[in-house]
Structure formats: C-alpha cells, structure tokens
C-alpha cells in the first residue's frame, strides 16, 4: 500500500509507542472491572440458585433440553453456516479448554471454592455464546419475531405485576371515579374531535378530564357503594387495553381479527380473574397481568401472521416452555440430585421469616416498587421543570442572572452531598416538620427524590443544552413563544438525553440504604404496605438486615437471592426506560 511504503521509505518513522501503551492499559482497566463484576455475579448466582449442589447430570439434562434447542433456534434464525461453525467450535473447544484448565488449576495451584468445571464451562463459555447468538439470532427475521413475542410476554407480566403492586397502595376507588368521570369522557371527546375534525371537541378534552379527576377526589368520600375490585380493574384497565388492541388491529386488518385480538385475551383474563379467587391467587392481579400480557401478544401475533414473515419464530416461547418441562420430567425420572434454589416462587411471594427456608422478600419488593414509582415521577417532573427553567427561561445577566448562577453552583454541590445527610434532611423536614411519618413510603420517596434531584437536573440541563441553537432560533423566528419553542422543539430533541440521566439517577435511588435508615424505615416488615403512610421496608434494607443474621444460610443463600431479585428489578426498570428512550430517538 502506498502509505506503508511512504512510512517505511524516505519519510522516517513516527513513534506510536505511548499511544499503543495507553490503548492497552485502558483496555486492561475496563476488562479488569468487568471481570471482577462478572466473578461477583457468578458467585451470587451460584448461591442464589444453589448451583453448587447441582449434579453434572442435572446440568447436562437442562443443557440438552433447554440451552441446545434455544441455540438451535438462534442459529436457524441467523441462517449463516459460518456462524454455526464458529458457535459449535466455541462450544466444543471451550468445553475441552475449560475442563483442562480447571483441572490443572485445581491440581497444581489452588482449590477453587464451590465451583465445578461444569459450572465454570456454563458461565465462561455457554453464557457468552448464548448471549452472542441471541444477539445474532435476533437480527434474523425469525429471531426478531421470537424475541418480540417473548419480550411482550415477559414485559406484559412485569408491567401487570407492577400495576397490581401499585394498586396495593393507591386507592383504586378514586381511580375508578377519576377514570369514569375524567379520563374516559376526555379520551372520548378527543377521539371524536380527531375523527370528525372538530377541533373544539378535541380542545375541550383536557378541561373535561381535569374537572372529572377533581370531581372524583371530592366524590370519593360521598359515594358509599362501589363495585368489587375485580369489576373496577375490568372496567378501568382490561376493557380499555383490549379496545386499544382491537383498534390497532382494525386499522390493519379485518373486523373479525380485531374482535379476536381484543376479545379473546379479555375473555380469558376475566374468566381467570373470577376463578382465581378459588385457587388462592389474587383475582384482580391475575386479571391485570393477563390483560396486559394477552392483548399486546394477540396484536403482535396477528401482525406477524398478517405480514407472513418469520411466523416460525412464534414458536420460541413454546420451545422454551417445552424445554423446561422436558428437563423437569427427565430429572424426575432419572432421579438425579437437583439444586434447591433460594430464589423461587415462595421467596418473592412470602414475608420474611426466622427460618432461612421460609424467608421471603415480598413486602420489601412491594415497598421498593412503590418508592421507585413515586421517585421516578417526582424527580422527573421536578428535575425536568427545574432544568427547563434554568436553561430556557432565565436571563444571563442582571439580578436574575446572578440568582441563576448561584442556583447552578448549589445544584452542582448538592450532587456531591453524602446520602446520609439527605436522610437527615428527610427526617427533619418530611418526617418531623411536615408530619408525614417515620419510615413511611411517602417520606422515603420524597427523601430519595431530593437525593437524586441534582443528578436529574444536571443531566437534563446537559441534554437541553445540547439541542442546537439553530433550532431554537428557527422556531423563535417563526413567531413561537418561548414555551412553544421549548415544548415543540427543545423537549422532543432533548428527551432521550433526559431519560438517560433519569435512568442513571433512579438506579442510584433503588439501591440507597443510608437515607432510608435515617428516616426510620424498617429493616424487616411482615406485610406489604397498604398505603403510602404505612411502615415499609425496601429490598436493600432487607438484604442488609439478613446479611447480619447468625445462620450461614441467610448470609449466603437468602442474601444472594435478594441481590439477584434486586438486580432483576433494576434491569427490568432500566430496560423499560431504555426501550422508551430508543423509541423516542427513532421518533426523530
């Protein structure tokens, strides 16, 4: 090549040694961090799922019934022989390499605690290969359909559970009235206005909705009889979701398909909701979960079948379910020793206990979910509001300008204040002065919102500042008021960045313990909070308390299960926010 000749030839050479050294040092630093985190997570997972007691036969069974079909699905979706060869090579070569290396280290260097070579193979080779193939597979049409369906199933269940959890605390009767008097008429007016091109109907929607909501709050105490919870959920959540789903399908396909996509899940959800009471499952929650899961799934399935591409992918959830059942049957028939995971259904549905086998995290999970929901709303509204004011409305000079700069400096400093201090503030301000109660969910939410507010504000400011001035001036020159420019141009453009900052800040809030201790949150409560003014516990508090228990089972198994639960909820929450953000970015 010409450039090679030039550097090798008459122009001499320029040393790149320092640059190369820097490159590899930074690579090493990032890899070291990841490896440390990976090792920690592997051990936590081994403890939480009791994998140390998993027999090789058990591992082999599930590898064959669950992992291999899944990888096969991904490879089929990718449809690339080269990737298939590479994956098989990595799995086979990895098996030999890990087994040899592991045995060698155990024999000659040091005994590796609570890890067998099969587990090492699972974590070092199978997990990354699965991750990679999932990524590759999801880019094929069949894989995209499969993961799309799986995502709707899992996401629907998660959202349904979260909504059900929130209704434990928030008064569903007010919601029932607000929905019937405010939300429904407003939505109806708006839809009518758009449909008939009647702008007055559409613009009347907001005032009508607000009046309805205010009326609901006043009427809550006046009206004495209400329908049962199940009817309320059916009327206010399941029916509208089904209607929206049916409308989406109707926009694309036939009326029959629309009725089926909305109606069948609704019927199943309703029937299950009414029957669930007899089985000991809370009926309203079952209704919400099934409706939230079923309708989007039905709409998605209809869309895929209508499009005719990658229909095979719809089998992925069946493949996984079949793998789990087949594995369980084989293990049962073979009689091989199976692990007894700490993290199981009873762990997330039952209250804490003195015996490790019966200990559960349910009240703490509910507490955390409620707090996070409140903190997300509060800090988002306050943070975005403040940053818009600071960036778009304040003048750069004069008295207001000086005040703004003072505010800026203070906000930057507030971000660096230890969380214990915020705990003290919450204790003094919210618990004592405002009388919101010690260790109540509302005090905790307000305190944590204050704690992350500086981070939210600063990142939102950055996002708003990164919107090019050209766009603002373009909008101003069209005769837009400052509010119109902010609302129509600045905020849509800054929204993804604002969300990113909020996600990071929320991640910090969900893991905070110190301020919760300061405001007097309980380490352990035995029932889920039933109002915002109840005593509550949060996941990190409960995990911290268990870590101090004398029994070793608590300190290893139960704590590990708690950590995994916390991580799953955190990842679920961040995943939702990231999906939202990506959608907003695509919208541009």
């Amino acid at each position: 090549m010409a450039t090679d000749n030039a550097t090798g030839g008459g122009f001499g050479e320029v040393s790149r040694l320092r640059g190369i050294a820097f490159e590899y040092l930074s690579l090493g630093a990032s890899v070291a961090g990841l490896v440390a985190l990976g090792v920690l997570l592997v051990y936590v997972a081994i403890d939480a799922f009791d994998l140390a007691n998993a027999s090789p036969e058990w591992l082999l069974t599930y590898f064959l019934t669950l992992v291999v079909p899944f990888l096969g699905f991904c490879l089929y979706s990718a449809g690339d022989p080269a990737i298939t060869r590479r994956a098989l090579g990595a799995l086979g070569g990895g098996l030999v390499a890990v087994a040899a290396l592991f045995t060698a280290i155990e024999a000659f260097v040091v005994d590796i605690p609570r890890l067998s070579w099969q587990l090492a193979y699972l974590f070092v080779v199978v997990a990354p290969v699965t991750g990679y193939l999932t990524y590759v597979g999801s880019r094929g049409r069949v894989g995209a359909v499969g993961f799309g369906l799986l995502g709707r199933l899992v996401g629907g269940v998660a959202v349904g559970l979260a909504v059900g959890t929130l209704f434990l605390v928030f008064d569903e009767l007010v919601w029932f009235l607000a929905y019937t008097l405010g939300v429904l008429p407003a939505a109806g007016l708006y839809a009518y206005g758009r449909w008939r091109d009647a702008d007055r109907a559409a613009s009347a929607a907001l005032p009508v909705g607000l009046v309805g909501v205010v009326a609901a709050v006043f009427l809550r105490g006046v009206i004495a009889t209400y329908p049962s919870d199940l009817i309320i959920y059916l009327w206010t959540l399941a029916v509208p979701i089904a209607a929206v789903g049916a409308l989406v399908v109707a926009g694309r396909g036939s009326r029959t398909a629309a009725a089926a996509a909305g109606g069948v899940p609704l019927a199943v959800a309703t029937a299950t909701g009414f029957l669930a009471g007899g089985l000991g499952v809370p009926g309203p929650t079952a209704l919400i979960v099934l409706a939230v899961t079923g309708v989007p799934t039905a709409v998605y399935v209809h869309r895929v079948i209508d499009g005719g591409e990658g229909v095979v992918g719809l089998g992925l959830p069946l493949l996984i379910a079949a793998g789990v059942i087949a594995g369980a049957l084989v293990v049962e028939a073979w009689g091989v020793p199976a692990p007894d995971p700490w993290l199981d259904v009873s762990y997330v549905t039952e209250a804490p206990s003195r015996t490790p086998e019966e200990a559960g995290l349910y009240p703490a999970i509910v507490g955390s979910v409620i707090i996070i929901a409140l903190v997300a709303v509060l800090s988002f509204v306050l943070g975005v509001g403040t940053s818009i004011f600071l960036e778009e409305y304040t003048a750069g000079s004069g008295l207001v300008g000086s005040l703004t700069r003072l505010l800026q400096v203070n906000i930057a400093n507030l971000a660096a204040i230890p969380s214990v201090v915020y705990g003290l503030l919450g204790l003094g301000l919210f618990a004592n002065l405002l009388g919101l109660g010690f260790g109540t969910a509302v005090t905790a939410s307000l305190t944590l919102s204050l704690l992350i507010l500086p981070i939210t504000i600063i990142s939102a400011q950055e996002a708003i500042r990164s919107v090019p001035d050209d766009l603002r001036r373009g909008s101003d020159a069209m005769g837009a008021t400052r509010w119109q420019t902010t609302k129509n141009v600045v905020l849509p453009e800054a929204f993804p960045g604002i969300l990113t900052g909020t996600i990071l800040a929320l991640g910090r809030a969900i893991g905070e313990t110190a301020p919760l201790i300061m405001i007097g949150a309980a380490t352990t409560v035995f029932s889920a909070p039933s109002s915002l003014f109840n005593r509550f516990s949060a996941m990190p508090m409960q995990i911290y308390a268990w870590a101090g228990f004398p029994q070793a089972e608590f300190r290893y198994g139960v704590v590990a299960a708690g950590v995994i639960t916390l991580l799953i909820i955190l990842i679920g929450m961040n995943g939702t926010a990231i999906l939202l953000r990506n959608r907003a970015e695509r919208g541009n």
Partner: protein
Amino acid sequence: MSNTPTSDSLITTDVQTESTDRSAVSGATAVAARDLNVYYGDEQAIDDVSIEIPEKRVTALIGPSGCGKSTFLRCINRMNDMIDVCRVEGDVEFGGKNVYDDDVDPVALRRKIGMVFQKPNPFPKSIRDNVAYGLEIQGFDGDVDARVEESLKGAALWDEVKDQLDSSGLDLSGGQQQRLCIARAIAPDPEVILMDEPTSALDPVAASKIEDLIDDLAEEYTVIIVTHNMQQAARISDRTAVFLTGGRLVEYDDTTKIFEDPEEQRVEDYITGKFG
C-alpha cells in the same frame, strides 16, 4: 460558488436580463429604518442607518464581514432582542408602525415576517410537520394539508418530496433542507421574508435553485437578503444596499446603478474586489 467578479461586463449583463423589468415600477415601502443605531455593549454595530425598502421587491444587503448587515436584518423582526447585550436606538417601521414601540409584541411581529438562516435548520420532525410548524403555533384552523402543499410548491420542493411527507426533514439534502426552511417561512403567509446568506452553505447547483426561487417569491413577498456573493446580489435583487465597515450604509440604490455606476469610489472598489 463563484469568485468576486473582476469584470464589470459580466455583472452588467446579468442585471439587465434579470431584474430591470421589475425595478422600473416604484412600489410602496414595506420596511423603513430611521436613524437606526445598534450597539453590542460598547461596540457600535450599526451607525445611523436610514433606509426605505420597497414592497414586493428583492432588496440585497451586501458588504464585508462584520459590517452590520446581518444585525440590520435581525433588527427588522427583533431577533436581536434575544441577545442580552444588544441595544437598539431609532425606529424600524413595518406596516406603518415602529416595531420598537412599547406596545409591539415581538412574537406577534415575527409571525408576520418569515426568516431563513444561513445554515439550513429544519426541525427534527417530518417534512409535513416542518412546514406546518408556523400554522400550528399560530393556531391556524383551516386546511393544513392544502397549505403545506401550497407552501412546498411555492418553495419548488413539492415534486421532490410529495411522496415522503412523513419522513424526517433531516433526511433531505442541504439544498432541499434550505428550500424546506423557505417553505416553512412562507407557510403562515408573512409579508416580508428575511434571508441571512441563504445559499452560502450550499453547492452551486442548489444555490442556483434557491436564487430562481427568490425571484419567484418577489411576486408575492418583500424579500430582504443578506449575501456575500456579489454576483448573486446582481442577479436576483432589484435594490442593493452596501454596508461598509463600522455599520454605515454607504450607498443604496437600484441594483443596476450600484453595479454599473456607483456614486461612491469605495463601493466601486468593494464591488470590483479591490477592497473588502
């Protein structure tokens, strides 16, 4: 972009073919400045400028960098209000009213005056929403789609984008983006269109399309354009104002006169490239 013209004959031909026919008719005044002084802090950007800009004509403002021509343009729709240190003295009359009077709402003023910037700045929205932006913020309650089509046709962009009105305005090429910005500016049907070097970020082909468009726009609108390109000023404008360093308006006359036989020696030096 062409270089500064060195031969007078080139300019002269262009002026004769393009715009003599319009400049012969004398029209009413659209915008007028009287004893206008503008300061950025202590620095004077415009020095005692008085000018009357005729209706439904193209008026070009030319001059070297930093001579205050863009500042003058931004005085007309009070975009200078956004700059904290900027201070304006004197009158700018638009529609028989001083726009710096206390009872003038700058936002309402800007709704009557469209503006096109140097760098194309379409919003990160669909083409349709870009054009409809002015209508939306002004609460226009007529047929928005018809207006969008009319404006895109007015900006000579309709045929290129009519099948992709819902795709983003940012997906267009630079020249198309600038025409989209022009469509956006004319959609609310303003009386005056201000253009701040609208072709300086574009390639010659795209620039010549915009020039043709400006010629058409003058049928309906008063166009005031700042440009660095003297050939462009000679080609498209009916009247030309020459600003020289210090924010002084040195000469203002019919374009033909300015380019063929300027009164001031400094203007001739500037136009022929001996100074600037």
